[in-house]
């Protein structure tokens, strides 16, 4: 190990080493400690918006995906209190969009659903908003269904930082936020997005789907049918 990995934090009492510059989430994932998250993907700059990865550090709540690991931090993550808060956040995500799992192609492979399974969500609890959201089917190979968007900005980050196309952006604030498309018409069909783009591989929900792929994997063989999101994300450090 040497001095390079000599610094440590503890997560739920477990000693976890970290390198300078790593976040608590980075250190946790490297040590096979699962902290639930949706807007975080280790391939991209942290966004810190979904707050599912909130942990308690020395008594204060912080987003573990953006909080740098610092020598001696005592982190609490897998506690009843924090998991209850994560469950409430997940339930709010369900009711503020239109997440109708039985009709969604992403069902069984959806991270929002999988996190809800992991947290034992038996119902969305809160009153549903049933918001009016636009569907954009103008692209020949891609469907954008804003009903399922959770504003994680992963497609925004992937299109900007990896694809170099800047196809997506978030517009508006709070409950008025929408995922917008960077073309004069505002339609996906008028952009240079390709179905092979990185932006098409990162959506945690069924908001961005490749056309003509629906229901090709039978129920029982989908990613989260038999494996929790914890096992999947620790297993290969992300799909």
């Amino acid at each position, binding site marked *: 190990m040497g001095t390079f990995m000599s610094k440590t934090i503890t997560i739920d009492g477990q000693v976890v080493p970290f390198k300078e510059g790593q976040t608590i989430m980075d250190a946790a994932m490297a040590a096979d400690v699962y902290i639930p998250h949706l807007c975080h993907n280790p391939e991209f700059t942290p966004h810190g918006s979904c707050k599912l990865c909130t942990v308690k550090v020395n008594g204060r709540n912080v987003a573990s995906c953006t909080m740098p690991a610092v020598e001696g931090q005592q982190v609490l993550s897998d506690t009843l209190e924090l998991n209850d808060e994560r469950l409430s956040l997940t339930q709010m995500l*369900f009711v503020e969009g*239109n*997440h*109708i*799992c*039985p*009709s*969604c192609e992403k*069902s*069984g492979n959806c991270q929002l*659903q999988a996190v*809800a*399974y992991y947290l*034992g969500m*038996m*119902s*969305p*609890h809160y*009153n*549903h908003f*049933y*918001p*009016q*959201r636009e569907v954009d089917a103008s692209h020949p190979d891609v469907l954008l269904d804003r009903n399922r968007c959770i504003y994680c900005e992963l497609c925004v980050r992937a299109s900007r930082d990896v694809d170099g196309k800047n196809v997506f952006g978030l517009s508006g604030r709070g409950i008025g936020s929408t995922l917008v498309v960077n073309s004069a018409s505002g339609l996906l069909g008028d952009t240079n997005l390709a179905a092979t783009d990185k932006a098409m591989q990162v959506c945690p929900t069924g908001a961005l789907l490749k056309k003509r792929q629906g229901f090709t994997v039978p*129920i029982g063989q989908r990613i989260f*049918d*038999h494996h*929790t999101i914890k096992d999947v994300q620790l297993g290969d450090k992300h799909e």
Partner: protein
Amino acid sequence: MSDPKLKVRIATCSLAGCFGCHMSVLDIDERLLGLLELIEFDRTPLTDIKHCGPCDVGIVEGGVCNAENVHVLKEFRKNCKVLVAIGACAITGGIPAMRNNIDLWDCFQEVYQYEGGLEGGQVPNDPELPLPFDKVHPINEVVKVDYFLPGCPPSGDAIWRFLTDLLNGREPKLDYEMLHYD
């Protein structure tokens, strides 16, 4: 346990649902016979009893899409010690709630006037028909619900686990693979 006085009395109904959850109950298969030693049915689609009487457990499939749904649901809540929402529709509105972002009159016109092969093209307007709501709602937005059993439908195994937990006085708990929303 075959003494009727000791049996747990259960009522079930389907509101804005497809009866798929009721069909899934049949997937309990031969375990149904053992279950019938422990329970008896009040109002269900099987007994043809029209109104729910005093019961231990009420199991409601489907969301609330019209005025009649509300009356039935409130009767269940009033009469059942424990009320269970079964399936995606009762818990989230489900597939019927996909009409929630479409104007109700547009829905009616699409179904009764524009759809091909229709005679007359009239929107049904009989006073006996229940008043439809502009949106479909999960039942917990109308009455207090004690337990939720998600799935579209929940599997026979999930229903069996849930019922046997409940009948044995345990807090119902599903295994990971029994919990799904589709």
